[in-house]
């Protein structure tokens, strides 16, 4: 026994040998329990996530209308994309939406978090109110706003009229439809950014502000040299998740404007949806989705790279 065991030990055990040993050794009960507990979750994970993702790589290389079997066409979908006016239009719409909605949203969320970060009565009440739109289903929220954006009978143009401003046609106007979606999205989405920033603010020790005050720092300097650096990890997280979220927005575009007028508010996500499920071009839709994924990946990587420069204590983590 011992003689046989010695050379086996010196060899690097393969993964299967390792698993086999785990099932027969002292820990076999724990090994068995470990795999069994993981099993229901893992089956779902493999069948409904891992497999579809791998499958997507194949679909994007085919032409497939579902009625006929898929036809392998290599990278043709990506070549078509380069010439596709609607692809570029929807991509630029997504960028426009993201570049405007994310900074304005974080800016407002930041000031709201600052205002809420004090020991006053009723703070939780205000926090709840700012958060209500966030939990409201987007379909309902967009429906309410669609009614409020009506040019003649809508509430928004009525209120603007009270201040002597003649409101635009909002969702029916190519130039105003996107701002309309952005306003509605920020109204709805600010809650979680505000909450994360607020938690970050509450994590800054009071002593830092006291020390800064003793050193003669004024309000602006305390903000610049204490609040912002200490809050930078939270800001970083909010920036990354908001950028990713903005590129993935779909519901409000479909309900509020349905991409119109004249594709002025068709983002990449809606174009993917239309390609696959309206025009039944599965392969092209999957190829577009791959582009969306690569964009999100690049944003995330770039943000992580930039983070070294401005996020406090980034290297430690």
């Amino acid at each position, binding site marked *: 026994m011992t003689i046989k065991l010695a050379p086996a030990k010196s060899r690097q055990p393969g*993964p299967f040998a*390792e698993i086999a040993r*785990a099932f027969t050794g002292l820990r076999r009960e*724990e090994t068995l*329990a*470990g*795999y069994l*507990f*993981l099993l*229901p*979750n893992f089956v*779902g994970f493999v*069948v*409904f*996530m*891992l*497999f*579809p*993702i791998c499958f997507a790589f194949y679909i994007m290389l085919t032409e497939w209308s579902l009625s006929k079997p898929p036809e392998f066409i290599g990278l043709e979908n990506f070549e078509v994309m380069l010439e596709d006016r609607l692809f570029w239009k929807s991509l630029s719409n997504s960028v426009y939406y993201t570049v405007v909605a994310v900074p304005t949203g974080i800016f407002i969320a930041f*000031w709201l978090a600052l*205002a*809420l970060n004090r020991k*006053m009565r009723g703070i939780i009440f205000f926090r*709840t109110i*700012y*958060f*209500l*739109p966030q*939990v*409201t289903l987007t*379909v*309902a*929220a967009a*429906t*309410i*706003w669609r*009614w*409020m954006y009506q040019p003649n*009978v809508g*509430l928004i143009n*009525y209120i603007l009229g009270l201040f002597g401003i003649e409101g635009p046609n909002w969702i029916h106007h190519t130039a105003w439809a996107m701002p309309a979606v952005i306003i509605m999205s920020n*109204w709805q989405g600010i809650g979680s950014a505000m909450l994360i920033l607020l*938690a970050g603010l509450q994590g800054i020790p009071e002593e830092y502000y006291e020390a800064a005050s003793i050193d003669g720092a004024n309000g602006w300097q305390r903000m610049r040299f204490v609040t912002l650096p200490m809050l930078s990890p*939270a800001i*970083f*997280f*909010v920036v990354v*998740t908001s950028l*990713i979220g903005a590129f*993935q927005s*779909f519901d409000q575009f479909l*309900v509020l404007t349905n991409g119109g007028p004249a594709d002025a508010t068709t983002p990449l996500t809606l174009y993917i*949806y239309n390609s*696959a*499920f309206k025009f039944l071009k*599965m392969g092209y839709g999957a190829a577009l*989705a791959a582009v*969306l*994924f690569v964009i*999100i990946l690049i944003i995330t990587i770039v943000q992580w790279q930039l983070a070294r420069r401005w996020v406090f204590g980034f290297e430690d983590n």
Partner: protein
Amino acid sequence: MSAAMGTQKRKTRFGQKELLRLHDLLVYIVLSVVGIIFLLPFAWMVSNSLKSIKEIYRLPPTFIPDTMQFSNYIDAWTATTFDRFFINSVIVSACIVLGQLFTASLAGYSFARLRYPGRDKIFLLYISLLMVPFTVLMIPLYVQMRHFGWVNSLNAVIIPFLFTPWGTFLMRQFMVTIPRELEDAARIDGCGFFRTYALIILPLTKPALATLALFTFLSSWNSFQWPLIVLGTPAVKTLPLGLYSFQAQSSMRTPWHLIMAAATFVVLPILVAFVVGQKYYVRGIVTSGIKGGG
């Protein structure tokens, strides 16, 4: 914060205490104005849901309806099969919440506590797929649903969502912080792994379970894009789909008063769930936020 600057300038005229109080007052005013802006769409929804069709198109608009037309709610409810949509939504959300609590807590315990080969590699795979957007998944998943014959069946919106990488991650992170001694004591007393999980770990994980339950409930109740793809027939539609088709089908003179009534009863359960479970929701956002950031 221009308010804060304003008080800075007046420092000479007020003492420190008055300054603070004035500052607080200004903050309250700003918070209230913003609060009104945030609440306005909800107030407008409720107000319009009680108006008559004439009044809803009348100019200038009124905030308090001349006569409260509560029958709008019944009219909207019966205008289409909202009872069916509601039941479907309840079935879908209940199944997904219970299923996710079960699979995520079991797998979380497995990842956090049990030792076996390949564990950390599998966990890494879970985390790395967290950032794959749903848009990438939806086309192959739809093809799969067609293959299974689940299109236009509630199976398609329930079964693929009975497991959750995000929730598993949440459970694992929470369970890692539970002191090992408690479990060891149970193990020495002869508890098997499943009993240890059910009797020791689960009760201690209640806050995290509540967080996961609330998040999952909200996201499944509000889910729109995927049901839109796989559920076409009215018999299987969920509430968001029902509301969407109700407002999209309307013709010339859109019955906005009924649409607002429908929006009200679709939104209300979610607002109640949030206000009741707010504590857990806030914790979920904050902990996952800090973890994701760090």
